[in-house]
């Protein structure tokens, strides 16, 4: 049991309280906030290195909150998958807070910006770390309550409407999640994920009837897809993304969306994969709920790619383009996950496909974070993000445009950037899925990926040609770009390039994460269920 597991959570919570207390001293409050995020990055790196990646690392670690043994207490688990997601959160978080300091007006920062930012971080961290299903619900709520305020942050009509839609959607989603969690508790008699995996693997030994798990897991899938903004639950995304302050939008796109995908991977592959539930529904027969995940999530992902791609092409505002693009890119994460679900559990494809999804998630967090932040910088400099009022930015500010260029190229998937490997691995998984099971569904998945790639090139090129090339518009001529903001963008662009150039360690990290996600038995072992022997 290592304190490092819970350290990032404690750092974020403490910073939230401190920044709330320092509301009257804006300078110190901002400094505390930045130091807090730096501390968060530090503790995450320390935890990831000493517990997961380092030479002497055990690979996974667990923390029993309050000293209660699992499965009775709340267990926090740091394994490869959690470590990978936390690293993404830390990377986007530091860029976002540094950008916020230069971007959000001091009056707006003074009120509740910093405490809420850290509460958002707390919710995300808790969701990635927890090994308890009900606790996962609680962390989702922590994250969402901070998000509601951020969507309504500017208090305009549009922001209030977007926030209300977001609120209604998510309250409904949370209610469904609570029902599903309650149902799973009634079915399996436990809320601890490891214990649940153990019981579902041998239902007879524990005297439970696991049949309802199929339906309940489908309910959970719908809720997580809502959080991830997959089609048909994508409609809250553009409104909420354009209404929130752009540094927070970067956090939404880079981190909170991934929480939904993380929860799908964690629950389906780690917990439900081993479930020995004979299923016979809609003409499909299968041995575990995973069999249903493949077609449903695949269809959702493919639809997201198409809807997001076409939506992005038709937008006339930069923020709108990237918000729709986010919908499409999450589809690129969902499709490999679906391929992994369809793959043979014993083969190598399943691990490779999950790793592909994770690499794509990392690329998307970095590139989309970079692009949303640059929208903020452009808006700050020119007072507009309407494409037709922009033009000639490449001449006006070569450095800012260079950073955006890197982000767009990574989105398109050009080597040697991070996006290239994300796309390469996603296509690799799709082709291997088709080769191992020649059929209509894998072929459609591949077609959707191809169409998505073409659409991405289309809207990325359009943004570049209309916004950055050509004659300088009056708005651009009057622009003065903030050098502090540009510095953050350049750092993020450098990270995108670095991940691509030095891809080998990144891929090994993603593979470690994928292995951890798939190895339910190791997960159960790490949690070490001392209590609850079958009762």
């Amino acid at each position, binding site marked *: 049991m290592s304190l490092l597991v*819970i350290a990032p959570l*404690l750092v974020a919570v403490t910073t939230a*309280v401190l920044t*709330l207390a320092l509301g009257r001293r804006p300078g110190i409050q901002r400094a505390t906030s930045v130091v807090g995020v730096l501390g968060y990055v530090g503790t995450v790196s320390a935890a990831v290195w000493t517990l997961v990646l380092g030479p002497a690392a055990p690979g996974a670690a667990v923390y029993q*909150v*309050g*000293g*209660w043994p699992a499965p009775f207490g709340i267990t926090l688990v740091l394994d490869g998958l959690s470590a990978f997601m936390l690293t993404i959160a830390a990377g986007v978080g530091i860029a976002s807070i540094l950008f916020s300091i230069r971007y959000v007006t001091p009056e707006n920062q003074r009120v509740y910006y910093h405490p809420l930012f850290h509460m958002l971080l707390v919710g995300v961290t808790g969701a990635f770390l927890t090994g308890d299903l009900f606790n996962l619900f609680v962390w989702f709520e922590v994250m969402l309550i901070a998000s509601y305020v951020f969507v309504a942050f500017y208090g305009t009509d549009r922001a209030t409407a977007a926030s209300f839609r977001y609120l209604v959607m998510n309250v409904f989603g949370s209610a469904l999640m609570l029902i599903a969690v309650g149902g799973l508790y009634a079915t399996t008699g436990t809320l601890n994920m490891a214990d649940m995996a153990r019981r579902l693997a041998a239902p007879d030994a524990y005297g439970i009837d696991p049949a309802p798990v199929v339906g309940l897991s489908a309910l959970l899938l719908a809720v997580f897809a809502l959080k991830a903004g997959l089609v048909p639950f994508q409609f809250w995304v553009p409104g909420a993304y354009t209404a929130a302050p752009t540094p927070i939008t970067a956090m939404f796109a880079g981190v909170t969306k991934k929480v939904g995908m993380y929860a799908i991977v964690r629950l389906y592959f780690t917990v439900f994969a081993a479930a020995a539930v004979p299923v016979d529904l809609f003409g499909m027969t299968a041995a575990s709920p995973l069999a249903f995940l493949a077609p449903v999530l695949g269809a959702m992902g493919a639809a997201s790619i198409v809807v997001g791609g076409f939506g992005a092409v038709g937008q006339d505002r930069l923020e709108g383009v990237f918000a729709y693009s986010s919908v499409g890119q999450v589809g690129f994460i969902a499709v490999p996950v679906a391929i992994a679900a369809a793959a043979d559990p014993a083969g190598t494809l399943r691990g490779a496909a999950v790793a592909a999804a994770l690499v794509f998630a990392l690329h998307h967090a970095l590139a989309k974070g970079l692009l949303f932040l640059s929208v903020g910088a452009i808006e700050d400099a020119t007072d507009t993000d309407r494409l037709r009022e922009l033009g000639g930015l490449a001449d006006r500010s070569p450095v800012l445009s260079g950073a955006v260029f890197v982000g767009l190229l990574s989105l398109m998937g050009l080597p040697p950037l991070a996006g290239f490997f994300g796309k390469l691995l996603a296509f690799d998984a799709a082709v291997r899925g088709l080769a191992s099971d020649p059929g209509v569904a894998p072929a459609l998945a591949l077609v959707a990926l191809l169409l998505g790639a073409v659409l991405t090139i289309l809207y990325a090129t359009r943004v570049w040609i209309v916004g950055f090339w050509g004659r300088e518009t009056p708005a651009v001529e009057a622009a003065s770009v903030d050098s502090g903001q540009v510095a953050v963008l350049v750092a993020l662009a450098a990270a995108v390039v670095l991940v691509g150039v030095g891809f080998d360690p990144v891929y090994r990290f993603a593979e470690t994460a994928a292995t951890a996600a798939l190895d339910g038995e190791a997960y159960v072992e790490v949690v070490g269920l001392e209590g609850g022997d079958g009762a």
Partner: protein
Amino acid sequence: MQTTTRVTVPIVLVVAISLFLQGHNLPGGGFIGGVLTAAAFVLIYVAYDLDYLESGVLGREIEPGTSVFEHRTVTAYRRTLLAGLVIVLGSGVAGILVGDPFLTQGYVHLEGIPVYHEVELASALLFDLGVYLVVVGSLLTIVSVVSGE
């Protein structure tokens, strides 16, 4: 309405405190105690008016024209919320300082030594006190700001 309030508010407050005190091993606790306390305050707000607490109970002058955020009662509520958060966090971290996991102190059952039993009781109550203050502070801030609009 005002007559009823005069009678019920003390009763509500006493029930709230008793729920709060028994919370760590019986139904009740900081949250519900806090909600009840806030409800008592809301009753006063509804029966009298928003300024009554400050002018009638505390005997202060109301400064006219200031926004509701600068009201002294609202500032006090926000301080209450903050104090509660600090207590919750502090009582959780205190466990780490003596070598136990986060949040431990309220839950461990030390080996039945009567004196230790007393200590355990107090630390669980501390966490609950934090929750109580957070709930009272946040609910009353929301109620007074929203109704002040």
